[in-house]
């Protein structure tokens, strides 16, 4: 063992060095978040649960019932029944059900959606989906459009 090592050992140099780093970090801004009361700012591309949307201008159903999202879903969580669009040409989804219990939030269903300029199915910013029964996760079209009520907590 060299003299330098001995000196370092005797004066606990590595300990002082570590403590100095800890002290430095003590004065850095906090990064923890008091979660239910404080919420993180989500990125615009955040992938929450998939939801449906209507045309923002005319409030008409955007989904044309092409079944592409149902086919590409790796978890088979989307089931659609297609019907003729009432009072117009083309098709629409008579019923559109997403089983959130199976969904893995991969976002593959959004890729092939043919409606332009905005897709009928989209990854929303909704999270926090826990519920008391499994039935609650099977979501019908109306709930898919309206979304889930987000619980708010007072700080």
């Amino acid at each position, binding site marked *: 063992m060299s003299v330098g090592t001995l000196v*370092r*050992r005797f004066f606990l*140099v*590595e300990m002082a*060095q*570590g403590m*100095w*780093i*800890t002290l*430095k*970090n003590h004065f850095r801004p906090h*990064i923890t978040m008091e979660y239910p009361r404080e919420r993180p700012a*989500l*990125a*615009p*591309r*955040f*992938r929450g649960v998939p939801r449906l949307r209507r045309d923002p201008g005319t409030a008409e159903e955007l989904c044309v019932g092409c079944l592409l999202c149902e086919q*590409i*879903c*790796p978890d088979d969580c989307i089931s659609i029944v297609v019907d003729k669009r009432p009072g117009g040409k083309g098709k629409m989804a008579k019923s559109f059900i997403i089983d959130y219990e199976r969904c*893995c*939030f*991969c*976002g*593959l269903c959004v*890729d092939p959606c043919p409606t332009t300029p905005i897709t009928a199915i989209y*990854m929303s910013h909704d999270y926090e989906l826990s519920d008391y029964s499994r039935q609650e996760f099977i979501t019908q079209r109306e709930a898919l459009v309206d979304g889930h009520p987000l619980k708010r907590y007072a700080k």
Partner: protein
Amino acid sequence: MFHTEILEVNMGPQHPATHGVLRVILGLDGETVVQCKPVIGYLHRGVEKLAEHKLYVMIPPLCDRLDYVGSASQNLGYIQAVEKLCGIQVPERGQYIRVILAELNRISSHLVWLGTHGLDIGAMTVFFYTFREREMILDLFEAFCGARLTTNMFRIGGTLEDFPPGWIEGTRRFVDLLPSRIKEYEGLLSTNRIWLERTKGVGVISAEDATNWGLTGPPLRGSGVNYDVRKAMPYAAYDRFEFEVPLGTHGDTYDRYLIRMEEMRQSARIIRQALDGLPGGDFRGKVPKKIKPPIAEIYHVIEGPRGEQGFYIKSDGTEKPYRMRFKSPSFVNLQALPALSNGALVADIVAIIGTLDIVLGDADR
């Protein structure tokens, strides 16, 4: 004089230091380990079989969940294997974006390793600091693709999307910040007496043994074998960048620690180069509507954060793979656990499992 026998002790499957659900049956002679038998399979989900029933485009989410700490590498490897199988060309910008994200993922994976490895050995503080920096990477991932852990950010033919506005600046800020933070971790660990005692000379494996066991990644390079898939068989755009492959000399836990620290710096260097030379143009190439590869077999390897990730696909000409096989570095590295832990103390087993940096989701598949 006294009657002695080897005591058999179960470590795991619910031991916090086994990084998942790994059971190690230890034969103990006092404190010394004389037998070591890893038992895996607690996290087996049959991903390879599941993949046979899915279209080629549906499989990336499954790959994400193999090695959930390094999901971008898994994604990249699988998608490149499919592209190789179908002969799909990826534009230069797409390749660069892939490299940037894969390297960011390598840094985040190494940060998780450093934090948990330190936690196992007893250096608690590092854990909080590494996870703070990892959070920055996860935020970048969230901004790019919307998810933080199981990212599913690459698509066949390119990437999901281009960089969002402000992303490149954010990444630059992070990459510039990282070396100073790595210095801090090293300040806490590299000369720390306890850390040295716990890592130096623990889990030693010679270069020859390491190659014979088939180790890959940092455990192999820690023994001084210069093998990195990024250099040996460059994929994506790795041949365009300058970086060094750090090598160890002793093949012990401390060397593997130094290598991973240096790898983080080199990853930051690659990201900086890629951001500087980011070409314009498309990020996603022309891809047929239906991915229907010819009847062929393909094996593609990439350098994941843990080592050589292999992807074997056998196609029978339909839209689904006929056979799928993932070669995971965690599995091969774990095989060497008995060789590494021979004659070690019980407390060293924790350090050795940590230094192999296994993810059981990857080992069990």
